[in-house]
């Protein structure tokens, strides 16, 4: 029987973005290869024995001065990581409103077009920096998408998270600090759990 490798996170996806256009169909084995691939990475991350993921702790380390009112309007250029932390705070506090959703959808659009997230944008979400290397942006957007998918079952968010996680997995050798590793482990476990649940709801039982 032909064996399929999950190849969507093998190359450096930040340097060579994947467009995902007209992707081929391989059958149920492809899902099995995806779970195998993700679990191999999860196991590697677990070996680091990092402290458990703590969202509030991570935000307070990344942006200790961030307040829940900081981005009620976008009038100036903004740091992407800070805006993402703001969105996470809002979700955490049950205040994921129309404005926050609009910011999220704009960032998703930006990512889906370029398959990159830049360090900063202007209020019209035009990128101001050529630098797309901050992995934390990909972690944070993926986490937000998974949380929003969980509460809304809107597949658009799960779809974007899968692409973000392919990028994160393609950069696994760069994950060195406790925050990256614990966040990476948490996000990949969450993603695979949600995908497995979706499969089961559809009567699909991947064998892995």
């Amino acid at each position, binding site marked *: 029987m032909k064996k399929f490798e999950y190849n969507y996170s093998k190359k450096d996806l930040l340097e060579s973005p994947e467009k*995902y256009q007209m992707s081929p*169909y391989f059958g149920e084995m492809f899902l099995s290869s995806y779970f195998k691939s993700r679990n191999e990475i999860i196991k590697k991350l677990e070996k680091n024995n990092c402290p458990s993921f703590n969202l509030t702790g991570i935000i307070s380390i990344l942006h200790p001065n961030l307040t829940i009112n900081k981005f009620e309007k976008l009038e100036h250029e903004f740091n992407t990581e800070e805006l993402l932390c703001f969105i996470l705070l809002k979700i955490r506090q049950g205040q994921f409103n129309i404005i926050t959703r609009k910011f999220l959808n704009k960032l998703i659009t930006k990512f889906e077009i370029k398959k990159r997230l830049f360090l900063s944008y202007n209020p019209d979400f035009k990128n101001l920096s050529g630098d797309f290397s901050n992995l934390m942006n990909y972690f944070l957007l993926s986490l937000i998408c998974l949380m929003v998918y969980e509460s809304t079952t809107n597949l658009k968010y799960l*779809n974007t998270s899968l692409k973000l996680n392919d990028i994160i997995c393609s950069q696994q050798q760069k994950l060195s600090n406790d925050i990256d590793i614990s966040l990476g482990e948490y996000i990949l476990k969450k993603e695979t759990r949600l995908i497995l649940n*979706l499969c089961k709801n559809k009567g699909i039982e991947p064998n892995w």
Partner: protein
Amino acid sequence: MVKTGIILTPDERSKAYIQKIVKNGISLDEILFMNDKRNEKDFDAREINQAKKYGFDISQPVKETLKTAKLDFQQFDFVDINHHDIEDYLKNSQSNFFIFTGGGILKKEILESGPKFIHLHPGIVPEYRGSTCFYYSIIKENKLGVTAYIMDKNLDTGDIIFQKIFEKPDHEFIDNVFDPHIRSETLLEILNHNLIEKGEFRKQDKGGETYYIIHPILKHISILCCVKK
């Protein structure tokens, strides 16, 4: 009298449209063919057979259909709806509407060139705008649909001519076979019932969702929803 033309490209969608139009004896006032003379794809025999069950042959190039049916057409040696040669042509066209088989966003100069453009989008708008919508719809609702609308400056937001729902297929050939099939069937219904001439177009409801190219994992889940018993 309303005149309707079609703008074809060398892909499976155009093949389905023009073959079914010819088979059903429908005549169009004008045919444009954007042809970059790309190499024809090699299709799996199972794909070809499935398409034939739906009434079209994905292995038959568009130009061959046009020549066999002895249809007059204007050819352009590129595939780019926003090309200035297309803009110049359209400014002098007598057609009121063009069915545009490609995708993407039309630039302002094309939208203002004279004719209106009709697109058949494989999603029921406003709930399913954007890309690869049918895969998402299959997962969420076990069915999918097509919307024919008048193109405007944004993506999938134009006035609706007609919408049609389809049951999900029982095979895996969605991109190259089922997608062109459901779009072309919807087009036939519009043309056979003179819906363009009737002009009873309606504005879209507010809200909705825009989807992006589906990730292979979700695509597989969607196709498995079709092929698994």
